[in-house]
């Protein structure tokens, strides 16, 4: 269909890196999102303020700007720290910088999603679990999180789709993802449209598969609910 002139495997290699970066970023985002949501709902005003500042600031700034800030600023921070601790030179690689920024950014969006989902779990269930003598951590693990995930799934799915597409920006800070592989192939063959179209089609395939899986997950999560009359 598309003549990739032998660069197909290289693009595919980049695609694997793209998916890896997106998945690790998602894992970081989910952890930060859970912490953010719990902080937003906590009784401590300081925690609420901190979480509020985190979600407001991150959602007010473009992801590319935050990525550049973390990549260049993070390198400087690491250099300063390494100098102070006499560790010699340490490099911030684009994968670590990119994945942590992705996680940091989408953690803010996840926090909003999870906050709403947590509020949708009836309070009485948490009180009942506590009354049974479960520790707060056990209540979280056995009662709150499993039920909250069901409400969080649609928002989580949307965030995942945006995050997946945002990985393309990692090529700007030098990650060897498929966008950068395509740029290299485009330069060598002078057929940029062909290669960027190929990358676009891989992204389209990834978003399509994600959408289908998410729809199946949502159906499964709703299996306990009453059928519409």
């Amino acid at each position: 269909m598309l003549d990739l002139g032998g660069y197909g495997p290289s693009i595919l290699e980049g695609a694997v890196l793209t998916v890896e970066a997106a998945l690790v970023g998602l894992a970081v985002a989910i952890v930060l999102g859970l912490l953010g949501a719990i902080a937003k709902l906590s009784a401590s005003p300081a925690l609420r303020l901190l979480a509020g500042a985190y979600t407001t600031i991150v959602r007010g700034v473009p992801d590319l700007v935050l990525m550049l800030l973390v990549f260049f600023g993070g390198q400087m921070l690491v250099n300063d720290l390494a100098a102070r601790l006499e560790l010699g030179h340490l490099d911030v690689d684009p994968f670590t910088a990119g994945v942590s920024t992705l996680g940091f950014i989408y953690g803010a969006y996840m926090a909003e999603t999870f906050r709403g989902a947590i509020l949708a779990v009836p309070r009485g269930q948490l009180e009942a679990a506590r009354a049974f003598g479960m520790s707060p951590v056990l209540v979280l693990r056995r009662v709150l999180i499993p039920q909250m995930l069901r409400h969080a799934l649609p928002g989580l799915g949307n965030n995942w789709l945006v995050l997946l597409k945002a990985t393309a920006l990692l090529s700007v800070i030098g990650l060897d993802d498929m966008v950068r592989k395509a740029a290299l192939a485009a330069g060598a063959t002078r057929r940029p449209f062909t290669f960027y179209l190929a990358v676009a089609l891989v992204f389209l395939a990834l978003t399509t598969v994600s959408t289908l899986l998410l729809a199946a997950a949502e159906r499964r999560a709703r299996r306990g609910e009453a059928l519409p009359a």
Partner: protein
Amino acid sequence: MIDLEIVLANLPLYLRGLWTTVWLTFLSLALGLVLAVPLGLARTSRNPLINGPVWAYTYFFRGTPLLVQLFMIYYGAGQFEAIRASPLWPLLSQAWFCALLAFTLNTAAYTAEIVRGAVLATPAGEIEAARALGMSRALVLRRIVLPSAFRRALPAYGNEIVFMLHGSAVASVVTIVDLTGAARIVNSRYYSPYEAFLTAAAFYMVLTFAIVGLVKLLERRWHAHLRPRLG
């Protein structure tokens, strides 16, 4: 830690970048909205020959990254002899036009789906009543469907405005000196990432809050009839 001298010395550069970001974003949004209304209406059509192509268009533009779309136009257009020979080439060989085109096509796709959702949510009774009063289909669209659809679409469209503002940062990747571009110049000139990018971030945040505030204000006006009446 933050060196304000650098920020102040480069303020004119940032302000020029701010202007570029603003016009690029809002011109794309305006053109995109003009395209999106007919496209969104086409998406509500039951005729697959009308609905299908528009579905494919929105599916492609919503399922792929804006950066890749921009690269396809900016780097990709020159691959074709026919485009290079066409009268459009003087425009397509310029970064600002490619960015404007990519952003417009992108936001039109998202907005078309917003319009579709809002139009489909029109209560059937309103349309039946208007038809029963003898209004033509075009008149029903103009007087009944579109005004209430715009009102319903406002919150989602407000999000789209913010997405487009933030998305426009990728223009800096194709040599355009927008806010992000200005920050990248400052960073490379002084090697001072905090000053460079935090300043740009502050500008973006002010813009974002201004947009969110304006949309809220507009929502309050347009949705005045939905608020509970006190006293």
